[in-house]
């Protein structure tokens, strides 16, 4: 951390000049030492930036959208998963290098990856509803843990290294004992799923999960009460559980209009919980909650974000954020806009968790 300002999330603000990319990005993470940040999305590549120099390079990537990304907790090894089910391991420091190993793309969409704190095990979850444990050094399969009835949207390793949780489309969160593969308990996050009588699809799901640093709390993000399966407008919602008992401790909301899921959550060093998600056709906000109040104590306006990570030094957050690069919205008779019609892009926003430096006059 270069800035001398004291940590204070109530003064959180975005760093200037976010990194930009001309395609949408879905996930963004810091490496374990913070020297690299990586992001993935719809262009199939792995994008890596050196934090100090902002130098950008790519790794050769996937055959389709990359939907999951996690760094090894002790090395610059990077794991990525895609919508065809393939998982690759990379040395993120080696520009253009091929994967260290690949877990075959013989399953549905890999939506979530996590690594245990000791770096020994890689966890994956996806549309085939099975949580899997892999050897993080070799990619060898170690265990399959069936139990979900639908797509697994998120996985998180507990700080004790012995347990993990997985959350699915239907709001079911399962706590697993990794050594045995047994279910320890379930957390009721069904409020994050909606299926009304006239829907033709299930909506919502556990879009993100994070443990408090001491492992006593589990926060699950998504949205509730979707009004349709078309626009899918709902109410962003965070459920915080006691990890030891599975009991729900609190529900957190935005307190302002935003219609999409909370896609990223991170506990900060003082127990503050930060969250960020999506909103249709307009800005939303990065929010900060104290767990004793249902609404945030601080908000920072921004566009929709799809992930959230905390720098290893605990002083900044990172998120891939939507950026329109041309005309959006509905079509029709827009031939005059044809040359300007391009795919949206992304920005990587860094949010500093301390006061902005005073502007010199």
């Amino acid at each position, binding site marked *: 951390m270069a800035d001398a300002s004291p940590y204070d999330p109530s003064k959180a603000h975005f760093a200037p000049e976010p990194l930009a990319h001309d*395609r*949408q990005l879905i996930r963004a993470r810091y490496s374990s030492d913070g020297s690299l940040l990586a992001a993935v999305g*719809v*262009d199939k590549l792995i994008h890596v930036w050196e934090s100090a120099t902002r130098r950008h390079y790519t790794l050769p990537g996937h055959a*389709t*959208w990359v*939907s999951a990304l996690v760094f090894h907790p002790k090395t610059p090894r990077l794991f990525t998963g*895609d*919508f*065809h089910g393939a998982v690759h391991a990379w040395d993120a420091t080696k520009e253009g290098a091929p994967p260290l190993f690949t877990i075959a793309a013989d399953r549905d*969409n890999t939506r979530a990856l996590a690594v245990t704190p000791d770096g020994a095990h890689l966890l994956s979850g996806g*549309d085939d509803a099975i949580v899997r444990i892999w050897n993080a050094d070799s990619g060898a399969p170690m265990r399959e843990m069936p139990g979900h009835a639908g*797509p697994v949207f998120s996985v998180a390793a507990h700080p004790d290294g012995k347990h993990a949780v997985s959350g699915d*489309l239907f709001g079911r969160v399962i706590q697993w004992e990794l050594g045995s593969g047994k279910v320890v308990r379930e957390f009721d996050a069904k409020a994050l799923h909606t299926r009304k009588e*006239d*829907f*033709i*699809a*299930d*909506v919502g*799901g556990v879009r993100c999960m994070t443990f408090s640093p001491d492992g006593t709390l589990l926060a699950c993000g998504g949205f509730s009460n979707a009004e*349709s*399966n*078309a*626009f*899918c*407008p709902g109410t962003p919602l965070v459920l915080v559980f006691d990890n030891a008992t599975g009991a729900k401790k609190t529900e957190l909301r935005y307190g302002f209009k935003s*219609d*999409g899921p909370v896609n990223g959550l991170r506990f900060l060093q003082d127990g503050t919980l930060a969250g960020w998600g*999506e*909103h*249709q*056709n*307009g800005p939303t906000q990065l929010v900060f909650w104290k767990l004793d109040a249902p609404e945030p104590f601080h908000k920072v306006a921004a*566009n*929709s974000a*799809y992930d959230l990570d905390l720098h290893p030094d605990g002083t900044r957050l990172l998120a891939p954020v*939507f950026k*329109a690069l*041309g005309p*959006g*919205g*509905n*079509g*029709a*008779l*827009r031939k005059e806009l*044809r040359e300007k*019609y*391009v*795919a*949206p892009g992304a920005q990587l926003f860094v949010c500093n968790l301390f006061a902005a430096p005073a502007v010199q006059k």
Partner: protein
Amino acid sequence: MLGGLLAAGAAGLPGLMQRGIAEEMRKRGKQVCFIWLDGGISQFESWDPKPDSPFAGPFRSIPTSVPGVHVSELMPHTAKLMDRISLIRSMSTKDPNHSTGVARIQRGDPINRGVDYPFLGAAVSKLLGAPENGLPPYVSIKPGNGGFIWQEAGFLGSKFGALALGDGKPPIHIRRPDDLSAESDTARNTLRRLADARFKSGRRESEVDAWESSFDMAEKLMARKDLFDESRLRPEDVQRYGTHPLGRHLLLARHLLEAGVQFVKVTSYHWDSHGDHFNTARQMVPAIDQPFAALVSDLEASGLLKDVVVVLMSEFGRTPGINSRFGRDHWPDAWSLAITGGGVARGRIIGKTTPDGAWVAEAPCDVGDLFHTIFSALGLDSKKAKYRNQGQPLPIAHEQCKPIADLLA
């Protein structure tokens, strides 16, 4: 004759009809099954995947039974039948709004002459003439409420409206109460008709026509309660079509077509995926793929496909660009639909979009061209046939459009 055939069906042939029966039934004339995915199915996630486009979604593109033609991996069943259907990949229409676009498309978007054109079902019923088989000619299967939708008749007059079966259920009171004798029921209806006639005398067409039509249709359906007897459904058919609403409704559509209903519209709502498009498409597109493929297969196996035009479409497609909620918005500029049966050629791919899938590159088709093609496939001369609305001759489809020659067998 028809009664005997239907009795045979009820007795032991509730599934695929024997080919001979189909031959007999075909004498009833042409029919249409019009499947409407309200809100707009994405062409990228169905008929026109562009895996190398910057606008591509995450799903695979898979080969079909037509060499060189690929569709989304979300449509594996239909992919195997691609040689038995045709696609238009170059639909380009004008209206980006649901509120106006649905009616505009289902009316064929003719030149505006200040009159309400009929929806396709009403048009077919008028132009072909309703078959004399004791069944309502235009039946609409839809989620939600049923009833008689006279508004779809446009200037043809309300009797050409659609009998809507809410959630595929028969109209309520389709069964005559036990304490009402057949004689009393007949006498009651006679009195009603006399009252209607007196009310109408000296008046121009009124909503009474719609009420009369709905009563007439109710009477017809009361004689055909067997069509809604779910105990007749073969479990293997239910599994093949799917137990979700689209599956159940398309299976009912097949039964209604087999029974002789001239025009069956099946509507599915909530395809307007502005948010969470890729999570919902993964559930929704397979939900139409499976029963659509089953329907086409069954109609072909029974021989009915020769005379039943099947259309699967929406009011527009979805944007190439992906919005902030990972949704796709409305895109009438370049979209796709599927069509088969009747006089429609099979295994044809009409038109082409640009490599990125955003725009029509070859053979743009308006919905007017589609209406000309459907009418032609039903044996009508769409360029010559005319409606007469209070003496005014009106073209049955946009006169600046024409049948898609490559799509006609």
